[in-house]
């Protein structure tokens, strides 16, 4: 198993490097420079001076090697535009953890309620209760999260005043509640749909009948025998979902003015703030790749049939 994980980590590093290279090349083709937006007119000579200052006049490959070298020592460069000359690592510090935190919370709620809803629908398969649960998850899947965000903000922050309307760094946890809930609707819906389909299939299988014929309680049969087998498929969609939640939602972050990375990423792209864009893209890809690795390891833990050879002997 460890050999497998190490091998996968090696592949992950190579993948990330390739992604970085592609990003460098793509940004090179982007129209404009980081310095168009600075207020007032800026002459071509001035741009050249700035380019030389930040080393942007060098060839792409040279910059790429240099960037990777610096990155390894934890230096992601400075922001050119958004916050002048501020080191990226410092700029992202609070934002990244906040986005990850909200995303993880949303995922936790999404998984919990999604599974409950899905299992419930599967057990009450083909009854009005099932149709109700399916309808709920359909709404969750098709209505965009900002609609929920606005609704929640209106009811709980504006009318009831239970939570602050806008993000307040002094009341961090309570401020993350609404964004978390708004973000969790989509994972609830997807996980409910997947777990319903999977559970219906699993609960119909012979080993469930055998488990029932052993005289085990319904709960044990559903959780120990049913859910564990259904999880194999559900897990597949959970990895990418968690990453997309953790990379921050621009819309939800805007509505609650959460200082996360979702907004920052869009902003950086618009103003050609190269270092910010590349760092965030790098972090997002790394999150994604690590999550896929984690999911693959989880497969092995849940399903002995996929347990990778080369580890413990069968």
């Amino acid at each position, binding site marked *: 198993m460890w050999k497998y994980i190490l091998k996968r980590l090696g592949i992950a590093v190579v993948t990330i490097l390739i992604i970085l290279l592609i990003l460098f090349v793509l940004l090179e083709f982007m129209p404009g420079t980081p310095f168009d937006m600075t207020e007032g007119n800026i002459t071509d000579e001035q741009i050249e001076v700035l380019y030389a200052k930040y080393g942007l006049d060098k060839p792409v490959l040279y910059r790429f090697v240099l960037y990777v070298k610096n990155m390894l020592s934890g230096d992601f460069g400075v922001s050119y535009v958004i916050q002048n000359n501020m080191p990226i690592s410092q700029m992202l510090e609070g934002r990244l953890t906040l986005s990850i935190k909200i995303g993880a919370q949303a995922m936790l709620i999404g998984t919990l309620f999604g599974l409950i809803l899905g299992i419930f629908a599967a057990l009450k398969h083909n009854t009005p209760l099932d149709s109700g649960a399916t309808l709920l998850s359909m709404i969750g899947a098709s209505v965009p999260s900002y609609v929920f965000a606005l609704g929640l903000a209106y009811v709980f922050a504006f009318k009831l005043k239970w939570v602050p309307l806008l993000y307040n760094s002094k009341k961090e946890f309570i401020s993350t509640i609404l964004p978390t809930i708004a973000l969790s609707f989509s994972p609830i819906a997807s996980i409910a749909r997947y777990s319903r389909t999977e559970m219906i299939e699993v609960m119909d299988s012979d080993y469930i009948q055998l488990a029932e014929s052993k005289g*085990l309680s319904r709960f044990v049969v559903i959780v120990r025998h049913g859910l564990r087998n259904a999880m194999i498929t559900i897990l597949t969609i959970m990895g990418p979902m968690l990453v997309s939640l953790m990379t921050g939602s621009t819309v939800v972050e805007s509505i609650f003015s959460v200082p996360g990375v979702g907004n920052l990423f869009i902003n950086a792209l618009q103003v050609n703030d190269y270092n910010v864009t590349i760092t965030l893209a790098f972090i997002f890809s790394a999150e994604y790749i690590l999550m896929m690795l984690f999911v693959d390891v989880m497969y092995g833990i849940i399903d002995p049939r996929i347990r990778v050879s080369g580890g413990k002997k069968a």
Partner: protein
Amino acid sequence: MAYTETAYTEKILEIKDLSISFQTSAGTVNAIRGVNLDLHRGETLAIVGESGSGKSVTVKSIMGITSKNEHVNHGEILYTYEENGEKVTRNLLSLPRKQIIRHYCGQRIAMVFQDPMTSLNPTMSIGKQVMEGIRKHRKMNRKDAWNEAVNLLTQVGIVNPEHVMKSYAHQLSGGMRQRVVIAIAIGCNPDILICDEPTTALDVTIQARILELIQKLQKQRNLSIIYITHDLGVVAKVANTVAIMYAGKIVEKGTSYEVFYDPKHPYTWGLLSAIPSLDSDGERLYTIPGSPANLLHEVKGDAFAPRNRYALNIDFEEEPPVFKISDTHEASTWLLHPDAPEVHPPIGLQKRIQQTLQEGLFI
């Protein structure tokens, strides 16, 4: 091959006039239409019939394993057992499902399923699956349960039980898996073992081994066994009593000697004629014409009549009652009525019966 006429006197399970129907999108299917069956202690009963004749539904209703669209119209399943030294008889159909699962399934009545490839949980180690029932019903701690599970696996003929305990289903062969399933079934010392086509999914060479194992366990533990099968070879090998089922009814019932050597129902004749024999001189193998009765429609008369070349006019009009041939043998066909014309089994079958009676082997 045991045609010894041991008397089985202690009635343990009695199915009385069981009727079950299914609600489907096409309408109500009357899958079980008045089944009567007895099972005695130590007896092996084989229920034989083609797919869809209701064998599985009948025995699954004993265990309370029912589908959502299944409805028991009427009938009783009386189970007699000893509880605290006293004999108790309970109607399993009148008990709530929860109670059946908690007090009967696994402990008093256990089941071996058809396909060992799919009846073990792929994500749980064999050991855990064997121990699960023991720990729940016999209130053992982990260590005792482990030892008991190893013991059980040894009893079902698994050579390296300790190793198998840590394995997963996909690492075992079909025969091994079926042994594990049997170990799970006998784990809590049941009275009744239901085997739903236990050898159908297995390699022919393994089939005999598994049947022998079940027979050995039956002797050791004085089990009453119900086999569901459409393999008459299995029946001849293991059964004391045979019930032939067609379209949700038992059409003929008797000791296996009676059913194999003195069959009365035309459907039984058809089944027996359809067994391939080694010394046939290139004749076409007999098949019963037509297809199974569609139970979506109300059955008028004898359900087998349209496929029965010996059918009388009354077969299409009125359902035949059960005629007793001996204390143990009965069949439900109008041919047994005193007024019926004399009809004999097909010549080929008669010859075969004569021949095998001399040689002493049917199959």
